[in-house]
């Protein structure tokens, strides 16, 4: 049976996405490529999808080393590892306690960032394209907002400032993007760190 182009935009999205992933059968691929040679709009769509993949690859996970004791072949050390973790956690707790006691962090950093928009299932975005985009946009801005709050909690002021500029530039029309409280929080943390540094020399 010869290949038939999809009849809907959603159908096209699925076919082209599967195509860039190499998930079409040999016959489907041959049929689609024959069609693409005659349709520049769809060619551009394929190019865009490949660019999305390329941009996504710029976000890398931190590198980690698998803990020796996690794997079954070193199970004899598992208990020791757990005690080691407990001891390390205890030591870290003391260190955090000492640090937290200094520039009274709780007074500045709220207990939690704004709750991201409640998108839990794709059925939530089974609505108009505009509304779906809007929801995801609000949620993306909230995620950036959360990053800034965390950077401030870590006293990484320069990074927080840069990310705040990014939030305001990219998402000025969102709830999180228009949150002036972040600027106040940034100023407060900067002031407290300055006082703390002056006090400790």
């Amino acid at each position, binding site marked *: 049976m010869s290949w038939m182009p999809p009849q809907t935009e*959603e159908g096209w*999205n*699925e076919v*082209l*996405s*599967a195509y860039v*992933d190499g*998930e079409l059968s040999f016959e489907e691929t041959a049929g689609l490529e024959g069609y693409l040679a005659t349709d520049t709009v769809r060619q551009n769509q394929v190019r*865009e*999808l490949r*660019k*999305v993949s*390329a*941009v*996504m690859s*710029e*976000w*890398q*996970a*931190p590198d*980690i080393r*698998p*803990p020796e004791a*996690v*794997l*079954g*072949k*070193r199970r004899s050390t*598992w208990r020791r590892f757990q005690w080691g973790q407990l001891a390390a956690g205890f030591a870290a707790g003391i260190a955090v306690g000492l640090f937290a006691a200094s520039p009274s962090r709780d007074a500045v950093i709220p*207990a*939690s*960032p704004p*709750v*991201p928009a*409640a*998108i*839990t*299932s*794709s059925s*939530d*975005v089974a609505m108009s394209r505009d509304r*779906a*985009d809007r929801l*995801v*946009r*609000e*949620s*993306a801005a*909230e*995620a*950036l907002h*959360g*990053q800034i*709050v*965390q*950077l401030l909690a870590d006293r990484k002021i320069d990074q927080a400032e*840069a*990310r705040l500029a*990014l939030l305001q530039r*990219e998402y000025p029309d969102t709830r999180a993007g228009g949150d002036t409280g972040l600027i106040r929080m940034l100023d407060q943390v900067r002031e407290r760190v300055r006082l703390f540094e002056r006090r400790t020399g």
Partner: protein
Amino acid sequence: MNMQHHDSPGGPFWDAIDAHYRAVFGFAWRMTGERTVAEDVTQEAFARLAQSALRDGGVEESRRWVFVVARNLCISHLRRRTRHPETELGHGLPARAAGPADAMAANERAALVQAAVHALPVDMREAIVLREYEGLSYEAIASIVDCPLGTVKSRIARARELLRHQLRNVLEMDE
């Protein structure tokens, strides 16, 4: 079938599983955005694998199984977090950073990608993360998230479409 037993240190089975540790951590980290949670999830998933007789099914089945456990732990965490929001959120690392200016630009782009991926509905997020970052086939993803192949295809396509809209400013920069 690979019948390497856990009491045979350094065997090919565990060497292969070692190689998946980072992949499972990367998946958990991108799903939750929290490094400590991702570390806990990964350790828990591999610890359960170590105690399970399932590893005798071979590397491929063990990889699938450990992803399923990690995915379930991530979803439980995300559900808890919706009820009790916490503070920690991960920071993306830029893949390329030649100089200070490049580093800042790359950091911004990584932050935008991170925010856009975290804004996706969970079912779309897991499908696109397993595909884009772990390079799994649609069939492998379907078996991990326990849904039909067509659903995976549709979720990945919709996730890409939403990301294309969200990241249009970044995409235009490259033109």
